[in-house]
C-alpha cells in the first residue's frame, strides 16, 4: 500500500458522494437534466435506466471524463473541482469502464504499475508484484501477474482494474455495466468483492440496465429516464432475511419497472387484423453473439399479426430481429417464411419473400447518410434499368414525400431530416406487398403525433396481411399495438403471451427474468 498511500490519504475511507442539480447538454440532447444523486458511504447504489437515459453521462461527469455544464459535486459536504479523470482520482474516485481502459500488450504487473498518479520515476517491479499479489489474495482473485493483459478474459481484466483502482487509493468506485460479458462465477466473485468493499466503508455506484443484478446487489437504486431522475427506491427489504427471498417482493420489481417505463400500462388500441395463415415460423432457433446466446423454441407469426418484444435493451432482441430478417445466420434451428424454408439462405431471398427490416439506428443501418431522399427511392427501384430516369424518380419521391408527410424535398440529404422524418422516409421506402416487417424501436425519438401516424401506417399494412415483429423499450407502445408479447431477459426468451393477459406486475417480473 505504501506505494500509493500518500496521495490519497485524505479520501481513503467513508466518503459520502453528492451530485446536485447536474446539467449536461449534447447539442439538442439534454442528457442530464437537473439530476441530483446522493450515495451514502458504505453502500452500493444502483443507477438503473434504459440505454440513453443519461446514467453513463452522469457517472462520467463524476469521474471527470465529461465536464458538466452546471451543478455541484460534494464529497463529504465539501465541493470538489473535477475537470479530468486525474482530478477525480485525486479525490479518490475511480471508474471501471465497460471495456476496461487497460493496455493489452503489457503484462498484468505492468498495467498495475501504469496509470498511477504517484508512480515513482523509477519503477520497482518486484515491489509492485508483491503488492499486486497481496491485493489479489484479499479478494480471492486468481490472476497471473506475468500474463499478457490481452490474453485475460473480460472478467479478469475487470478484477485487475479494480485492484489497480483500489491500490491507487480509490474510495468511491464506479462500475459501468460490469456484468456484461463475464462468467457467472466471475459475477458472483465480483458481487462478493463489491459487498465487502461497501462493508469496509467505500461508496460504490453500480450502473446497469439489468434489473436482476441491481436487485441482487444494491442497497438503493436510482432510476433514470430521459435524462432525469425518475425515482429512488430502497432495496434493502429485498435482502432482509435469506438471499433467495428476493423473489417475494414483486411489488418492488413492479415499482422499478414503472419508474423505468413510466406510469401504469396503457390500454390496447389495436384493431384485430390477425388472419389464420402462418407467415413466419421459427423452430428451435439458437443464436450466438460474442456475449449472448439466445434460444427460441417455437414462434409462429400469422398474417396481419403484431408481436411486440419487450425487455431491457441488450437482452438479445436485435440479434433475434436481424436473424428473422435474414441478416444473421442462426447457429441452429430453422426459419420458414410463408411455408418456405429460408434457413441459411442469403438475405436477398428473404427480401424476395417479402421480409423487410427497419433498424432502430436509422442513420447507421437503415438510411445512407450522404444520399438524398430521391436517391433512396431510386436505390429501392434499382435493378430494373441501367439509366436512372431522373424525372420519374423525382416524381416518385415527391409522391412518397406527400403520402408520408415527410418534411423535406426530394433532394434533401437524409441526415438533414429530423428523426421523425427519417422514420417516415424509412417507412416510405418499404416495398408494397410485404409478408413480414421486422422493426426495432419503430417510434423511438418521435413526438406523439408522429408516433400515432407511424402506427396508423403500420396497422394499415397489417390489414393488407403484413405480419409485424417489433422490439421496443416503450411498454406502452408494446401493449397498445401488439396482439401478443414476448419478453427477452438476459438471453432468455419468454413464450408469447396474448396482450389481454398482461399487467404491469407480470411484465415487471418477466423483464426481471422470472417466467
Amino acid at each position, binding site marked *: 500500500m505504501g506505494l500509493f498511500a500518500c496521495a490519497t490519504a485524505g479520501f481513503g475511507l467513508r466518503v459520502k458522494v453528492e451530485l446536485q442539480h447536474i446539467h449536461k447538454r*449534447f447539442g439538442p440532447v439534454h442528457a442530464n437534466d437537473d439530476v441530483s444523486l446522493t450515495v451514502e458511504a458504505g453502500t452500493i447504489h444502483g443507477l438503473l435506466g434504459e440505454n440513453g437515459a443519461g446514467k453513463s453521462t452522469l457517472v462520467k461527469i463524476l469521474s471527470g471524463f465529461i465536464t458538466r455544464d452546471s451543478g455541484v459535486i460534494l464529497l463529504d459536504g465539501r465541493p470538489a473541482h473535477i475537470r479530468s479523470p486525474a482530478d477525480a482520482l485525486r479525490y479518490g474516485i475511480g471508474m471501471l469502464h465497460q471495456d476496461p481502459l487497460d493496455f493489452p500488450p503489457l503484462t498484468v504487473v505492468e498495467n498495475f504499475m501504469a496509470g498511477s498518479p504517484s508512480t515513482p520515476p523509477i519503477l520497482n517491479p518486484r515491489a509492485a508484484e508483491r503488492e499486486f499479489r497481496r491485493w489479489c489474495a484479499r479478494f480471492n482473485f486468481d490472476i497471473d501477474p506475468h500474463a499478457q493483459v490481452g490474453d485475460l478474459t473480460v472478467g479478469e481484466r475487470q478484477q485487475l482494474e479494480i485492484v489497480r483502482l483500489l491500490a491507487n487509493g480509490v474510495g468511491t468506485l464506479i462500475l459501468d455495466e460490469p456484468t456484461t460479458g463475464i462468467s457467472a462465477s466471475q459475477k458472483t466473485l465480483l458481487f462478493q468483492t463489491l459487498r465487502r468493499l461497501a462493508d469496509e466503508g467505500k461508496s460504490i455506484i453500480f450502473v446497469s440496465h439489468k434489473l436482476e443484478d441491481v436487485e441482487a446487489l444494491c442497497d438503493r437504486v436510482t432510476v433514470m429516464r430521459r435524462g432525469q431522475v425518475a425515482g429512488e427506491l430502497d432495496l434493502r427489504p429485498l435482502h432482509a432475511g435469506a438471499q433467495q427471498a428476493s423473489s417475494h417482493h414483486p411489488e418492488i420489481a413492479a415499482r422499478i419497472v414503472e419508474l423505468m417505463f413510466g406510469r401504469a400500462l396503457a390500454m390496447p388500441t389495436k384493431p384485430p387484423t390477425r388472419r389464420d395463415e402462418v407467415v413466419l415460423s421459427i423452430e428451435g432457433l439458437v443464436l450466438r453473439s460474442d456475449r449472448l446466446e439466445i434460444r427460441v423454441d417455437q414462434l409462429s407469426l400469422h398474417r396481419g399479426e403484431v408481436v411486440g418484444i419487450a425487455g431491457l435493451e441488450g437482452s438479445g432482441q436485435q440479434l433475434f430481429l436481424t436473424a428473422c430478417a435474414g441478416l444473421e445466420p442462426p447457429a441452429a434451428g430453422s426459419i420458414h417464411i410463408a411455408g418456405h424454408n429460408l434457413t441459411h439462405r442469403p438475405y*436477398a431471398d428473404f427480401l424476395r419473400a417479402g421480409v423487410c427490416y427497419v433498424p432502430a439506428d436509422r442513420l447507421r443501418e437503415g438510411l*445512407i447518410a450522404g444520399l438524398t431522399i430521391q436517391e433512396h427511392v431510386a436505390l429501392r427501384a*434499382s435493378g430494373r434499368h441501367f439509366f436512372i430516369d431522373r424525372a420519374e424518380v423525382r416524381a416518385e419521391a415527391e409522391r412518397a414525400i406527400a403520402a408520408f408527410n415527410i418534411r423535406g424535398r426530394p433532394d434533401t440529404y437524409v441526415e438533414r431530416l429530423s428523426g421523425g422524418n427519417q422514420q417516415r422516409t424509412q417507412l416510405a421506402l418499404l416495398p408494397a406487398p410485404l409478408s413480414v416487417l421486422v422493426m426495432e424501436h419503430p417510434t423511438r425519438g418521435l413526438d406523439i403525433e408522429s408516433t400515432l401516424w407511424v402506427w396508423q401506417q403500420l396497422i394499415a399494412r397489417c390489414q393488407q396481411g403484413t405480419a409485424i415483429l417489433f422490439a421496443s423499450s416503450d411498454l406502452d407502445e408494446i401493449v397498445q399495438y401488439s396482439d401478443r408479447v414476448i419478453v427477452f431477459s438476459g438471453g432468455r426468451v419468454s413464450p408469447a403471451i396474448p396482450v389481454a393477459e398482461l399487467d404491469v406486475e407480470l411484465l415487471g417480473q418477466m423483464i426481471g427474468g422470472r417466467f
Partner: protein
Amino acid sequence: MNSTIPSQTTLPWLWRLPALVYRSGALIISLLLIGLIVLLSGASPIEVIGRMLVGAVSTPDQIGRVVATLSTLLLCAAGLVYTFNAGLYNLGVEGQVTFGAIATTFVLRLLYPEEATASLLPPPLTIALGILAGALGGVLWGLLAGALHVYGRISEIFAGLGLNFAATGVAIYLIFGPWKRPGVASLSGTQPFDESLWLGTFGQTEATPVGLGLGLLALLITIVVMRNTYFGLRLRAVGKNQYAAHVLGVPARQQLLSAFFICGLFAGLAGAIQVVGVFHRLIPNISSNLGFLGLLVVMLVNFDPLWVLPVALFFSALNIGSLQLPLSLGLESSLAGVIQGLLVLFALLGRGLAQRYAAS
C-alpha cells in the same frame, strides 16, 4: 473504449466556422509552408512555381508530354472514381497499371516475335489486341485485390500494396529474365518494339490521340455512370454505408467486385498506353507512379468525376514542369514532389476539418 472524446457538438461556437474557411485556410497554410521549404532550399518560391508551370507549356514537346501524362492519369483517376465511391482505397492501382503493361507486352511479343521482321497481324490490329490484353491484365490484378478484400477480409490497402510489389516483381523478373534484351539485362527495360507498333502521335510530340481519346472517353463514361445510372448510385450507397446498403437490398459484394473490376480495367488500359504510346517497351517502373498521382487527384476532387479533368491537367503540368527545377534552377526536382504532396495533404486536411467542425 468509450467515446469520451468530445464530439463536434461540444465544441464552442467559435470553432464552428464555414467550411470554406477551413478549406481556404488549409490552402494558405500549405502555400506558406511550400514557400518556406523553397526558401530553405535556396530559391524564390514565385520563381519555382512560375518556372514549373511555364516549363510545362512553352514548347510543343512539353505540351505533348503534359497531354501524354494526362492521358494515363485520366485513365487511372477515372478507374479510381469507382473504387473511391465504393469506399475503397485502392492503392493497388499501381500494380494494376503494371500488370496491364505486362499483359500488353506479352501479347505484342507474341504477335511480333523478336526474330520476326514484321508483325504477324496488321500492326493496328496487333496494337488493338495489345491494348485489350492490357485491359484484361489490369482486370485480373484488380479482381485479385477485390477477392482478397471481399472474401479474404484483407484491407484493400494492404492487398493492393502487396499486389503492387508482386506486379513489380513480375515485371523485373521478366525484364531481367525471359524478356531481356539480346546480350543485355538492364533496368532500362525490354527491347523496344518495332516502330510499326508505336501509337501514332500528334506531330513530333509524345502525345498520342489514342491515349488521349481513351483517357477522355474513360472519364466521360465515368461521369455518366456515376451521375446517371443505378449502378453508380448503388456504388455510392455501398461506399457511404455498406451495412445500410445491404439492408436496403444492394448486393454489396457484387458492387465492390465491380468497382475493382472497372478500376482494374482502366488501370490496365493505362498500362497498355504506357507501353504502346509512351515507352514502347516494358520498363520496371512502367506506371511512372501515375497511379499514385491518380489517387491524389481523385481525393482532391472529393471523388466527383466532374472535376477530375482540370485537377489532373494541373498535376500533369506540375509533373512535367518539375524537370525545370534541376535544369534551370539547379534545384532537386523531388522538391516538386514535396510541393505536390503538401498541396494534397493540406487540401485533405482542410476537407477533413470542414467535415468535422464546420457549421452546416
